């Protein structure tokens, strides 16, 4: 009796997973993120207090709060399905944040709820990682060179600013998302959300300085819909 119930439950779960997970050959949402106006001038970072990092750069690197490409392309924008797609179990391979040359690579790291997160220190100095989480549990750890990677995961969706307490200029973003349908706009501002089953979706674009924009899109089959975002840039 009981076993039968368990079996049915199992089937139900399997079915649910089958319907929600990405179907190959589904529809695709693609597009471009751009800005209008003059974005803030990115300032060179003075790393003289950390010679082991400073010596890695011929010319000092600049801040990355607003990274732009040719013809008003806006980089580092997280584009994801905020509604319409069901939550998905996390993938097993971990998202990796690397600290190299006293910067976060990548500057914006997107991964799924409960997906393993791995943080590496490839510098000769010890770093401190302090994700300023508000919804998730906040923590603050240092990572001296030669220590094992810090492994962690987040169990709620949130955009988390990440900072290094030792090197004030080191800032990045964790995008903790509910499903696998996300992309980060490239140098040309382009992004692509493939393998979406038919349905009505809300597409959201998040930028660390300019905030969020959302658009609705409906997919019927395996067609490709284009969605573009335009952010307003401020000089200061």
């Amino acid at each position, binding site marked *: 009796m009981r076993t039968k119930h368990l079996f049915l439950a199992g089937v139900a779960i399997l079915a649910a997973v089958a319907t929600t997970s990405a179907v190959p050959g589904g529809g695709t949402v693609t597009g471009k993120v751009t800005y209008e106006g003059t974005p803030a001038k990115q300032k060179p970072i003075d790393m003289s207090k950390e010679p082991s990092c400073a010596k890695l750069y011929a010319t000092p690197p600049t801040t990355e709060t607003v990274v732009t490409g040719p013809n008003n392309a806006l980089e580092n924008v997280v584009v994801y399905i905020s509604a319409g797609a069901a939550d998905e179990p996390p993938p097993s391979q971990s998202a990796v944040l690397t600290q190299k040359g006293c910067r976060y690579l990548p500057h914006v790291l997107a991964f799924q709820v409960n997906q393993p997160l791995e943080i590496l220190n490839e510098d000769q100095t010890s770093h401190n990682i302090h994700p300023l989480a508000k919804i998730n549990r906040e923590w603050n750890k240092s*990572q*001296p060179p030669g220590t094992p990677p*810090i492994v962690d995961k987040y169990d709620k969706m949130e955009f988390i600013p990440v*900072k290094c307490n030792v090197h004030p200029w080191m800032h990045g973003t964790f995008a903790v998302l509910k499903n696998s349908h996300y992309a980060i706009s490239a140098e040309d501002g382009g992004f692509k959300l493939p393998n979406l089953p038919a349905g009505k979706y809300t597409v959201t674009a998040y930028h660390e300085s300019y905030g969020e924009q959302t658009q609705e899109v409906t997919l019927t089959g395996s067609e490709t819909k284009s969605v573009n975002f335009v952010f307003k840039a401020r000089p200061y």
Partner: protein
Amino acid sequence: MEETSAQQAHVHAPPEGFLRKYVFSLDHKVIGKQYYALGLLAVCMGMVLSWLMRFHLVWPTTRIPGLELLSKAGAPGGIITPEYYLSLLTMHGTLMVFFVLTNAPFAAFGNYFLPIQIGAEDMAFPRFNMMSFWTTLVAFLVLILAFVIPDGPPISGWTSYAPLSAVGKDAGPGMGWGMNLWAISIAIFCIGSLLGALNFIATTLDLRAKGMTLMRMPICTWAWFITSCIALLAFAVLLPACILLILDRMAGTSFFIPSGLVISDRLQPHSGGSPLLWQHLFWFFGHPEVYIAILPSMGIVSHILINSMRKPLLSARVIIYSMMSIGFLSWMVWGHHMFVSGMNPFSSLLFSFPTLTITIPATIMTLIWLGSLYGANIRINSASLFALGFISMFVSGGVSGFFLAQPSIDIVLHATYFVVGHFHMVMGVASIFGVFAGTYFWFGKMTGRMMNETLGQLHFWLTFIGTYCIFMPFHYLGLVGNIRRYSAFVNDFTGPLMPLHKFITIAALGTGAAQLIFIFNLIYSRYKGAPAPENPWSGTTLEWSIPSPPPWNNFGGKHPIVYHDPYQYDVKGSKGDYIMQDSPEPSAG
């Protein structure tokens, strides 16, 4: 009948049962031993912490196997993180200053010998006495609880400067519950110490035996008495300071936190507080605390020196008056810790002068000790060696005070290893030497068995040479401007200093290992030591007039009558070259 009622009126009945005898004992002797044990535990922990710090400083990338078991976040893969280094530093300082330097020479020996030396059957308030120990123990447990909570111990140093210590977890790892535990622990410790000090004072004032005038009290009794007066004021100030700190942390008040602080990218919700207020309150306690640590050892050492020299000091009174004036001056000098803190530069001058003035009584005491050695016949044994070592250490640590007492020189030496060397020598090592001397001198009385001399002297030589090897170089580092409280030396100029740092670390590990001899000696002698006679050192004071160990009521229900000043040595009496305080025979004059 009358008598028994009198007994009940003041003296507790003989203890019954294990708990009353050894755990919740009202007997000042047991409580003294309990304090000693607590101090011993704390000093071992503090020493291990200092080993870890020294090791990390010179071999920063070498794994310390097993350390990640102590703290996974603090030492990932056995490599100490910067914040964990600061945690170790904070706990080392707090354990050593509060639970070792305040407990061992003052609370431990004071509890055991002050009542005996004045001919009392116990402290004035035996229940308070027991409470003060157990409160202190609770404070200790609360403090080390910080090691096991996920947050880890606080990282703001034993001085816990606000606002770093006051703003909460945004200030960094360990500044959440770790810091709360620290503040609560110290507040509890204050209560315990206040009870203890109150007890010491009342006992000294009211329970002296017939004929035991104040000036007939042994020098160490005087030292404990003066110390308890200082402690009474000092901890009475630290307690409210801790309460205000706790409120700033947990209730959102702004006593020490000014407005507009941005910490970890967050604007702190406080306004108008004054960080300097904490510094003033803390150092108003903090500087007298230094004398709470050193005065008892001065007393113990004088007591032992006189006995080993077999003749009185040039003047015991001068020593007592010097200790009084040091205790008095210690209330006017706290500002010399704050010369570069942004305090009004004129008040720096005001603070500098009394600070320098303290060198006068200190020098007088040193010269009295030295001068008294002249023409003596010094017995050399572990106790007297450590007493002589104390004088040497006290001088070495004292002279560096000349520098730090001057604001202008403090500009370059403040917060360097010079300061670390200074206070470790004068307040740390010197007063610990006093404790060692006291232990070798009184162990027989306390346990009924003598400590092993051979091991004792071996322990002395290794410790004496070792501590100089550790703490003298600290001064050199400071003179170059090497900053203290750094978990790694990343400055360009510190490279050439690393050999010296390595030397210090090796010396520290070695000297630390030498302390195992002492601990072994304690345990070995406790069970296998030669039985202790009633008066092994042919001493004159009352503790030598009763069996070793003394009965529960010290004088077996009798009340000694005191006929002499404490140190009747070098007189041709019937029993040899000394007359005991309670023996009716006439003194030499």
